[in-house]
């Protein structure tokens, strides 16, 4: 159905593949993930290939991306955090390009599926856990013990800290997925109003200008959200990595 706002999120199998009862089909989602990775890699390799001292336009674009993420990481995790730069930069570029791919009509939005964002958030979460325990051992648990709290209410405070620590990967993933999903549905619904209103005679055609204006506005907003979600996801990743590196807050 043309006017179904959920239809755009349907997963279709392009190359069915079944390994021992595990469905490993190459879907449209996989295709756009591959496209995202290929586009990012090819662009970055191509644009930095010249290595001009005076950067060309494409080179300065990738330099801006680098500076942006590197600045974010250095600000929140310090120079020690730069070890994680490849990880954080890949996350940022993947989410940003996947979100921007989603803005093309008839394209599939990879990040509008919770399974993708959960995988990304869990990658961050596990990195934090492994690095935290690997670097500090049980000292990492200091993260849950705020300084200057009386012993009497300590168990309660620790439980609350643990809850908010467990909440992290969930909010990290749900935020990205929900924003992309909701934005695309809204866009589709308002665009659908244009069609259904313009079938109702002259008054309808004039009236359909209203949802049309709304759709134009929403498209601009969606571009902003697509960038901001990548930014927020990366910024939170930087903060979590900072916690793994400095659980005592030093």
């Amino acid at each position, binding site marked *: 159905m043309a006017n179904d706002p959920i239809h755009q999120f349907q997963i279709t199998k392009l190359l069915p593949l079944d390994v021992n009862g595990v469905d490993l089909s190459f879907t449209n989602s996989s295709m756009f993930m591959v496209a995202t990775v290929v586009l990012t890699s090819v662009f970055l390799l191509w644009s930095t290939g010249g290595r001009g001292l005076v950067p060309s336009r494409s080179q300065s674009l990738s330099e801006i991306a680098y500076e942006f993420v590197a600045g974010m990481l250095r*600000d929140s995790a310090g120079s020690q955090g730069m070890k994680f730069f490849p990880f954080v930069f890949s996350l940022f570029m993947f989410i940003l390009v996947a979100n921007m791919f989603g803005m093309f009509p008839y394209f599939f939005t990879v990040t509008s599926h919770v399974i993708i964002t959960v995988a990304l958030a869990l990658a961050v979460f596990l990195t934090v856990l492994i690095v935290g325990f690997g670097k500090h051992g049980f000292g990492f648990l200091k993260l849950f013990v705020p300084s200057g709290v009386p012993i009497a209410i300590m168990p309660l405070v620790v439980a609350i800290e643990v809850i908010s620590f467990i909440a992290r990967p969930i909010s990290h993933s749900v935020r990205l997925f929900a924003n992309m999903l909701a934005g695309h549905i809204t866009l589709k619904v308002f665009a659908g109003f244009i069609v259904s209103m313009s079938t109702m005679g002259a008054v309808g055609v004039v009236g359909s200008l209203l949802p049309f204006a709304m759709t134009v506005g929403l498209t601009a907003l969606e571009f902003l959200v697509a960038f*901001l979600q990548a930014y927020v996801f990366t910024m939170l990743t930087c*903060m979590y990595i*900072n*916690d793994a590196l400095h*659980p005592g807050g030093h």
Partner: protein
Amino acid sequence: MSNSDQRDQLEERLKSLDSRLRENDQKRNSGNKKSDNVNFSNAIRLSTEFVVAILVGVGIGWTIDRFFGTAPWAMIIFLPMGFIAGVRNIMRAAGLKTGSQVGNDDVKGNNTDRK
């Protein structure tokens, strides 16, 4: 006009430029420090941080109840704790200092505080 006169004039102009630049800098720093993007991204964060913490509290309570058959007590204990965790998350995300280390946002400021 002598040479030294010209130099004096130049120096004076440099000084006035200096002070004007400093004034501009101060104006920029005292006013809107964070860009709109940062504010927008904070707004996006706040809602989910709060809701998810409550859900996690409920989830923990429900799981304990299920495994130990203590319904509804664990839920009664963990729901308000999730609520408190949510409020703490929001206070942290909004940059209010709570003395905790999980999520130290606004890290620049916090770091200088702790040093």
